[in-house]
């Protein structure tokens, strides 16, 4: 699924990085705890979060995440937008709460990354 499809599904506004909507999103992670994002996500993942601090962008940069969607109508300040531009991570904003935003994307076939090695989803998923 392309980032542009995510934008349409979540009726999201593109805050920055509009030239990168053709990137492929393979997995997603919904979290407000950046410690968990750093510990459990795999690269090439898109982050959905309600946090709008610069640490969200830094966490994404270090973890090789590909895009960030801010949920619950939250919007980052200008310094955060500029930082995301510097490190090349597109930012989107949706009015959907985190649970619903994740649910919509999940319904369209995107999955998360296994939190621990060896852990597997149930077969009927």
């Amino acid at each position, binding site marked *: 699924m392309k980032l542009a499809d995510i934008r349409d599904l979540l009726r999201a506004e593109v805050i920055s990085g509009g030239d990168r909507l053709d990137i492929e999103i393979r997995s997603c992670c919904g979290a*407000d*705890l*950046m*410690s*968990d*994002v*750093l*510990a459990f996500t795999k*690269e090439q993942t898109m982050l959905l*979060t309600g*946090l709008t*601090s*610069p*640490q*969200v962008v*830094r*966490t994404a*940069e*270090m*973890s*090789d995440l590909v895009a960030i969607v801010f949920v619950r109508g939250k919007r980052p300040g200008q*310094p955060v937008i500029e930082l995301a531009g510097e*490190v090349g991570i597109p930012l989107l904003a949706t009015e959907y709460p985190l649970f619903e935003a994740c649910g919509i994307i999940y319904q369209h076939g995107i999955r998360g990354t296994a939190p621990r090695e060896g852990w597997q989803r149930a077969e009927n998923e």
Partner: protein
Amino acid sequence: MSEQGVNLEFTLAKYDFDGAGQASSKLKRLLQQIGVRPEVIRRIAVSAYEAEMNVIIHSQGGKMLAVITPGQTVLEFVDSGPGIADIEKAMTEGYSTAPDHIREKGFGAGMGLPNMKRCADQFDISSTVGTGTRIKMSFNH
């Protein structure tokens, strides 16, 4: 790159949340320029950022030292501060002494030290209560 490698040093200030991550970001870019494998760079960058945040959150300030040679990256974090009374407890996932205002920033979940240990090929921590903490991590390229 010469066999002696590249030495980097960054100063980390207490509660400098705006600057947090700059040192790790510069380190990551340098490793990319050198051509270290992306999977290795990711482990180094995540560990460096976790450690950087720890110094900013828990200590009175400190330093990040990086020595990059063709075969490996060695990171050393040295801070002045309260130190860690029980290192074994601090290494337990979920254990944290971070105050609420840090948790509101998305940190202080008690995942930092275990995550660094998991990411690094070698991990050493020593601490003296009332003096500070030192963490040394090595990553094979």
